[in-house]
Protein backbone atom coordinates (compact mmCIF):
# COMPACT_ATOMS: atom_id res chain seq x y z
CA UNK A 1 0.00 0.00 0.00
CA UNK A 2 1.21 3.50 -0.83
CA UNK A 3 -0.39 6.88 -1.46
CA UNK A 4 -1.54 8.56 -4.64
CA UNK A 5 0.65 11.59 -5.45
CA UNK A 6 -2.39 13.27 -7.02
CA UNK A 7 -5.04 12.95 -4.29
CA UNK A 8 -3.27 11.35 -1.33
CA UNK A 9 -5.58 8.34 -1.14
CA UNK A 10 -4.24 4.86 -0.46
CA UNK A 11 -3.23 2.89 -3.56
CA UNK A 12 -3.17 -0.90 -3.43
CA UNK A 13 -0.18 -2.44 -5.17
CA UNK A 14 -0.12 -5.79 -7.00
CA UNK A 15 2.25 -8.38 -5.50
CA UNK A 16 4.35 -8.42 -8.67
CA UNK A 17 4.53 -4.64 -9.08
CA UNK A 18 7.10 -3.60 -11.70
CA UNK A 19 9.02 -0.41 -12.28
CA UNK A 20 7.42 1.24 -15.31
CA UNK A 21 3.99 -0.25 -14.62
CA UNK A 22 0.90 1.96 -14.69
CA UNK A 23 -1.62 1.79 -11.85
CA UNK A 24 -4.98 3.51 -11.58
CA UNK A 25 -5.86 5.39 -8.41
CA UNK A 26 -9.23 3.98 -7.38
CA UNK A 27 -10.12 7.26 -5.67
CA UNK A 28 -9.28 10.01 -8.18
CA UNK A 29 -8.80 7.91 -11.32
CA UNK A 30 -5.30 9.26 -12.01
CA UNK A 31 -2.95 7.05 -14.00
CA UNK A 32 0.15 6.51 -11.88
CA UNK A 33 3.55 5.32 -13.00
CA UNK A 34 5.64 3.14 -10.72
CA UNK A 35 9.03 4.90 -10.61
CA UNK A 36 10.65 2.38 -8.29
CA UNK A 37 9.65 -0.67 -6.28
CA UNK A 38 12.04 -0.67 -3.31
CA UNK A 39 10.62 1.45 -1.87
CA UNK A 40 7.58 1.95 -4.07
CA UNK A 41 7.48 5.44 -5.51
CA UNK A 42 4.63 6.64 -7.69
CA UNK A 43 4.17 9.69 -9.89
CA UNK A 44 1.43 10.81 -12.24
CA UNK A 45 1.93 8.93 -15.53
CA UNK A 46 2.85 10.82 -18.71
CA UNK A 47 -0.04 11.89 -20.91
CA UNK A 48 -0.78 9.81 -23.99
CA UNK A 49 1.31 10.89 -26.97
CA UNK A 50 0.46 10.69 -30.62
CA UNK A 51 2.95 8.02 -31.60
CA UNK A 52 2.13 5.62 -28.78
CA UNK A 53 0.83 2.24 -29.75
CA UNK A 54 1.90 -1.11 -31.08
Amino acid at each position, binding site marked *: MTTCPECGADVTLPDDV*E*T*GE*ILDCATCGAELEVLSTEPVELDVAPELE*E*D*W*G*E
Partner: protein
Amino acid sequence: MNVGVLYSRIRRDEKLLLSELRERGHEVTKVDVRDQQFTLSNAPEGLTDCDVVVDRCLATSRSKYATRFLDHYGVPVVNSAETAALCADKAETSLALSAAGVPTPETTVAFTTDAAMDAIESFGYPCVLKPVVGSWGRLMAKLDSKSAAEAILEHKATLGHYEHKVFYVQEFVEKPGRDIRVVAVDGEPIAGMTRSSDHWLTNAAKGASAEPFEVDDEVAELVARASEAVGGGLLGVDLMETGDGYTVHEVNHTVEFKALDDAVDVDVPAAVVDWLESRVEETATDEQTVEATT
Protein backbone atom coordinates in the same frame (compact mmCIF):
# COMPACT_ATOMS: atom_id res chain seq x y z
CA MET B 1 20.16 -16.11 -21.60
CA ASN B 2 20.24 -12.43 -20.80
CA VAL B 3 17.27 -10.65 -22.36
CA GLY B 4 17.14 -6.89 -22.54
CA VAL B 5 13.68 -5.37 -22.49
CA LEU B 6 13.57 -1.86 -23.86
CA TYR B 7 10.47 -0.12 -22.55
CA SER B 8 8.93 3.12 -21.42
CA ARG B 9 5.76 1.68 -19.97
CA ILE B 10 5.19 -1.80 -18.61
CA ARG B 11 1.84 -2.91 -19.99
CA ARG B 12 0.25 -6.24 -19.16
CA ASP B 13 1.95 -7.57 -22.31
CA GLU B 14 5.38 -6.75 -20.89
CA LYS B 15 4.44 -8.17 -17.49
CA LEU B 16 3.45 -11.46 -19.13
CA LEU B 17 6.74 -11.53 -21.02
CA LEU B 18 8.86 -10.64 -17.98
CA SER B 19 7.10 -13.25 -15.88
CA GLU B 20 7.68 -15.98 -18.47
CA LEU B 21 11.34 -15.07 -18.86
CA ARG B 22 11.97 -15.05 -15.11
CA GLU B 23 10.06 -18.28 -14.54
CA ARG B 24 12.43 -19.97 -16.99
CA GLY B 25 15.43 -18.62 -15.13
CA HIS B 26 16.55 -16.12 -17.74
CA GLU B 27 18.30 -12.96 -16.69
CA VAL B 28 16.26 -9.88 -17.55
CA THR B 29 17.75 -6.44 -18.10
CA LYS B 30 14.98 -3.86 -18.06
CA VAL B 31 16.01 -0.63 -19.75
CA ASP B 32 13.79 2.43 -19.65
CA VAL B 33 14.40 4.07 -23.02
CA ARG B 34 13.58 7.49 -21.54
CA ASP B 35 16.73 7.36 -19.40
CA GLN B 36 19.09 6.46 -22.23
CA GLN B 37 21.48 8.37 -24.44
CA PHE B 38 22.45 6.83 -27.75
CA THR B 39 25.88 7.92 -28.95
CA LEU B 40 27.53 7.01 -32.23
CA SER B 41 30.03 4.66 -30.64
CA ASN B 42 28.90 3.09 -27.37
CA ALA B 43 25.76 1.18 -26.51
CA PRO B 44 23.97 2.19 -23.31
CA GLU B 45 25.26 0.39 -20.24
CA GLY B 46 23.76 -3.03 -19.69
CA LEU B 47 22.61 -3.60 -23.23
CA THR B 48 25.95 -4.85 -24.59
CA ASP B 49 25.78 -7.91 -22.32
CA CYS B 50 22.37 -8.95 -23.61
CA ASP B 51 22.01 -12.00 -25.83
CA VAL B 52 19.01 -10.30 -27.35
CA VAL B 53 17.13 -7.07 -26.73
CA VAL B 54 13.37 -7.01 -27.15
CA ASP B 55 12.07 -3.65 -28.30
CA ARG B 56 8.87 -2.97 -26.37
CA CYS B 57 8.95 0.82 -26.72
CA LEU B 58 5.51 2.32 -26.49
CA ALA B 59 6.43 5.31 -28.64
CA THR B 60 6.96 4.51 -32.29
CA SER B 61 9.57 7.24 -32.73
CA ARG B 62 11.68 5.83 -29.90
CA SER B 63 11.29 2.31 -31.24
CA LYS B 64 12.54 3.34 -34.67
CA TYR B 65 15.63 5.14 -33.45
CA ALA B 66 16.52 2.86 -30.54
CA THR B 67 16.49 -0.25 -32.73
CA ARG B 68 18.54 1.56 -35.35
CA PHE B 69 21.18 2.49 -32.77
CA LEU B 70 21.26 -1.04 -31.31
CA ASP B 71 21.74 -2.38 -34.80
CA HIS B 72 24.60 0.09 -35.24
CA TYR B 73 26.29 -1.19 -32.05
CA GLY B 74 25.88 -4.80 -33.19
CA VAL B 75 23.50 -5.62 -30.33
CA PRO B 76 20.93 -8.22 -31.46
CA VAL B 77 17.49 -6.64 -31.29
CA VAL B 78 14.00 -7.86 -32.06
CA ASN B 79 12.30 -6.62 -33.95
CA SER B 80 14.93 -5.30 -36.32
CA ALA B 81 15.42 -1.64 -37.15
CA GLU B 82 14.33 -2.40 -40.70
CA THR B 83 11.09 -3.97 -39.50
CA ALA B 84 10.44 -1.08 -37.12
CA ALA B 85 10.94 1.47 -39.88
CA LEU B 86 8.57 -0.35 -42.23
CA CYS B 87 5.85 -1.05 -39.69
CA ALA B 88 5.97 2.30 -37.92
CA ASP B 89 4.78 4.14 -41.01
CA LYS B 90 1.62 3.04 -42.79
CA ALA B 91 2.82 4.30 -46.17
CA GLU B 92 6.01 2.25 -45.80
CA THR B 93 3.98 -0.81 -44.78
CA SER B 94 1.65 -0.44 -47.76
CA LEU B 95 4.61 -0.17 -50.12
CA ALA B 96 6.34 -3.21 -48.59
CA LEU B 97 3.18 -5.33 -48.79
CA SER B 98 2.48 -4.19 -52.33
CA ALA B 99 6.05 -4.90 -53.45
CA ALA B 100 5.74 -8.42 -52.02
CA GLY B 101 2.44 -9.00 -53.81
CA VAL B 102 0.51 -9.30 -50.54
CA PRO B 103 -3.11 -8.20 -50.97
CA THR B 104 -3.58 -4.89 -49.16
CA PRO B 105 -6.24 -2.16 -49.45
CA GLU B 106 -5.88 0.30 -52.32
CA THR B 107 -4.05 3.33 -50.98
CA THR B 108 -3.12 6.78 -52.24
CA VAL B 109 -0.78 9.25 -50.54
CA ALA B 110 -1.05 12.98 -51.28
CA PHE B 111 0.70 16.01 -49.82
CA THR B 112 -1.83 18.81 -50.20
CA THR B 113 -5.48 19.05 -49.26
CA ASP B 114 -6.43 19.60 -52.91
CA ALA B 115 -4.57 16.51 -54.07
CA ALA B 116 -5.98 14.52 -51.13
CA MET B 117 -9.49 15.69 -51.99
CA ASP B 118 -9.02 14.48 -55.56
CA ALA B 119 -7.86 11.11 -54.25
CA ILE B 120 -10.85 10.88 -51.92
CA GLU B 121 -13.26 11.72 -54.76
CA SER B 122 -11.60 9.04 -56.89
CA PHE B 123 -12.15 6.43 -54.18
CA GLY B 124 -15.73 7.61 -53.64
CA TYR B 125 -17.59 7.44 -50.33
CA PRO B 126 -17.04 5.97 -47.89
CA CYS B 127 -13.27 5.88 -47.88
CA VAL B 128 -10.74 6.14 -45.09
CA LEU B 129 -8.18 8.75 -44.08
CA LYS B 130 -5.49 7.55 -41.69
CA PRO B 131 -2.47 9.13 -40.02
CA VAL B 132 0.74 7.57 -41.37
CA VAL B 133 1.96 7.12 -37.79
CA GLY B 134 -0.42 6.10 -35.06
CA SER B 135 -2.07 3.18 -33.40
CA TRP B 136 -5.05 1.95 -31.41
CA GLY B 137 -7.43 3.36 -34.04
CA ARG B 138 -6.70 6.96 -33.10
CA LEU B 139 -7.32 9.77 -35.61
CA MET B 140 -8.77 7.35 -38.13
CA ALA B 141 -11.53 8.91 -40.21
CA LYS B 142 -14.21 7.16 -42.24
CA LEU B 143 -15.27 9.73 -44.81
CA ASP B 144 -18.94 9.41 -45.70
CA SER B 145 -19.35 12.63 -47.67
CA LYS B 146 -17.47 15.38 -49.44
CA SER B 147 -18.33 17.89 -46.73
CA ALA B 148 -16.93 15.57 -44.02
CA ALA B 149 -13.78 15.07 -46.11
CA GLU B 150 -13.30 18.81 -46.53
CA ALA B 151 -13.66 19.42 -42.80
CA ILE B 152 -11.25 16.67 -41.78
CA LEU B 153 -8.64 17.68 -44.36
CA GLU B 154 -8.81 21.26 -43.08
CA HIS B 155 -8.38 20.07 -39.51
CA LYS B 156 -5.43 17.85 -40.44
CA ALA B 157 -3.77 20.66 -42.39
CA THR B 158 -3.87 22.88 -39.30
CA LEU B 159 -2.92 20.27 -36.68
CA GLY B 160 0.69 21.34 -36.82
CA HIS B 161 2.81 18.26 -37.14
CA TYR B 162 4.12 17.74 -40.66
CA GLU B 163 3.06 14.09 -40.65
CA HIS B 164 -0.59 15.18 -40.66
CA LYS B 165 0.06 16.74 -44.06
CA VAL B 166 0.97 13.36 -45.47
CA PHE B 167 -2.57 12.37 -46.42
CA TYR B 168 -2.96 8.59 -46.49
CA VAL B 169 -6.23 7.77 -48.23
CA GLN B 170 -7.48 4.22 -48.43
CA GLU B 171 -10.40 2.30 -49.85
CA PHE B 172 -13.06 1.37 -47.30
CA VAL B 173 -13.22 -2.41 -47.03
CA GLU B 174 -16.69 -3.78 -46.24
CA LYS B 175 -15.63 -6.28 -43.63
CA PRO B 176 -18.13 -8.50 -41.80
CA GLY B 177 -18.02 -6.54 -38.52
CA ARG B 178 -14.68 -7.96 -37.57
CA ASP B 179 -11.07 -8.18 -38.52
CA ILE B 180 -8.43 -10.82 -37.77
CA ARG B 181 -5.26 -10.44 -35.73
CA VAL B 182 -2.59 -13.10 -36.04
CA VAL B 183 0.49 -12.93 -33.86
CA ALA B 184 3.39 -14.62 -35.57
CA VAL B 185 7.12 -15.18 -35.10
CA ASP B 186 9.14 -15.02 -38.30
CA GLY B 187 5.96 -15.71 -40.23
CA GLU B 188 4.87 -18.72 -38.16
CA PRO B 189 1.49 -18.04 -36.50
CA ILE B 190 1.33 -18.42 -32.72
CA ALA B 191 -2.42 -17.88 -32.65
CA GLY B 192 -5.17 -15.77 -34.15
CA MET B 193 -8.30 -14.01 -33.02
CA THR B 194 -11.14 -12.07 -34.51
CA ARG B 195 -11.95 -8.63 -33.17
CA SER B 196 -15.63 -7.76 -33.53
CA SER B 197 -17.47 -4.51 -33.04
CA ASP B 198 -20.55 -2.65 -34.23
CA HIS B 199 -18.19 0.24 -34.92
CA TRP B 200 -16.23 0.34 -38.18
CA LEU B 201 -13.04 0.33 -36.10
CA THR B 202 -12.42 -3.10 -34.61
CA ASN B 203 -9.25 -2.44 -32.62
CA ALA B 204 -9.04 -4.17 -29.25
CA ALA B 205 -8.05 -0.76 -27.85
CA LYS B 206 -11.45 0.54 -29.04
CA GLY B 207 -13.26 -2.15 -27.08
CA ALA B 208 -13.79 -4.75 -29.80
CA SER B 209 -14.56 -8.22 -28.47
CA ALA B 210 -12.04 -10.96 -29.16
CA GLU B 211 -12.76 -14.56 -30.14
CA PRO B 212 -10.33 -17.31 -31.13
CA PHE B 213 -9.70 -17.65 -34.86
CA GLU B 214 -8.46 -20.87 -36.38
CA VAL B 215 -5.66 -19.84 -38.73
CA ASP B 216 -6.32 -21.59 -42.04
CA ASP B 217 -3.78 -22.26 -44.77
CA GLU B 218 -4.70 -19.15 -46.74
CA VAL B 219 -4.29 -16.86 -43.73
CA ALA B 220 -1.10 -18.62 -42.67
CA GLU B 221 0.39 -18.08 -46.10
CA LEU B 222 -0.55 -14.40 -46.12
CA VAL B 223 0.88 -13.94 -42.64
CA ALA B 224 4.15 -15.56 -43.72
CA ARG B 225 4.37 -13.34 -46.79
CA ALA B 226 3.44 -10.17 -44.89
CA SER B 227 6.03 -11.01 -42.24
CA GLU B 228 8.71 -11.58 -44.84
CA ALA B 229 7.77 -8.32 -46.58
CA VAL B 230 8.65 -6.30 -43.47
CA GLY B 231 11.69 -8.28 -42.39
CA GLY B 232 10.14 -10.84 -40.03
CA GLY B 233 10.21 -10.96 -36.24
CA LEU B 234 7.48 -10.90 -33.63
CA LEU B 235 4.56 -9.32 -35.44
CA GLY B 236 0.84 -8.72 -35.24
CA VAL B 237 -0.60 -9.11 -38.73
CA ASP B 238 -4.09 -7.66 -39.21
CA LEU B 239 -6.32 -8.94 -41.99
CA MET B 240 -9.83 -8.21 -43.21
CA GLU B 241 -12.17 -10.63 -44.93
CA THR B 242 -13.22 -9.29 -48.30
CA GLY B 243 -15.78 -11.91 -49.27
CA ASP B 244 -13.49 -13.66 -51.73
CA GLY B 245 -10.33 -13.69 -49.68
CA TYR B 246 -8.34 -11.56 -47.30
CA THR B 247 -6.51 -8.26 -47.38
CA VAL B 248 -3.69 -7.33 -45.00
CA HIS B 249 -4.18 -3.82 -43.69
CA GLU B 250 -1.60 -3.55 -40.93
CA VAL B 251 1.53 -5.15 -39.52
CA ASN B 252 2.41 -4.24 -35.93
CA HIS B 253 6.02 -4.50 -34.79
CA THR B 254 5.65 -3.90 -31.03
CA VAL B 255 2.55 -6.05 -30.95
CA GLU B 256 0.30 -6.17 -27.91
CA PHE B 257 -0.74 -9.76 -27.26
CA LYS B 258 -2.64 -9.67 -23.97
CA ALA B 259 -6.05 -9.72 -25.70
CA LEU B 260 -4.96 -12.70 -27.79
CA ASP B 261 -3.57 -14.47 -24.74
CA ASP B 262 -6.95 -14.02 -23.03
CA ALA B 263 -8.90 -15.15 -26.09
CA VAL B 264 -7.08 -18.36 -27.02
CA ASP B 265 -5.85 -21.50 -25.28
CA VAL B 266 -2.32 -21.00 -26.56
CA ASP B 267 0.16 -19.58 -24.05
CA VAL B 268 1.27 -16.61 -26.16
CA PRO B 269 4.10 -15.27 -23.93
CA ALA B 270 5.49 -18.82 -23.65
CA ALA B 271 5.53 -19.12 -27.44
CA VAL B 272 7.28 -15.75 -27.70
CA VAL B 273 9.95 -16.83 -25.21
CA ASP B 274 10.35 -20.18 -27.06
CA TRP B 275 11.09 -18.15 -30.15
CA LEU B 276 13.55 -15.86 -28.36
CA GLU B 277 15.39 -18.88 -26.97
CA SER B 278 15.66 -20.49 -30.40
CA ARG B 279 16.89 -17.22 -31.94
CA VAL B 280 19.62 -16.84 -29.35
CA GLU B 281 20.58 -20.49 -29.75
CA GLU B 282 20.79 -20.14 -33.54
CA THR B 283 22.92 -17.01 -33.26
CA ALA B 284 25.31 -18.79 -30.86
CA THR B 285 25.54 -21.78 -33.21
CA ASP B 286 26.21 -19.50 -36.19
CA GLU B 287 28.98 -17.73 -34.26
CA GLN B 288 30.58 -21.03 -33.30
CA THR B 289 30.47 -22.15 -36.93
CA VAL B 290 32.16 -18.95 -38.08
CA GLU B 291 34.84 -19.31 -35.38
CA ALA B 292 35.49 -22.92 -36.36
CA THR B 293 35.96 -22.04 -40.02
CA THR B 294 38.29 -19.07 -39.50
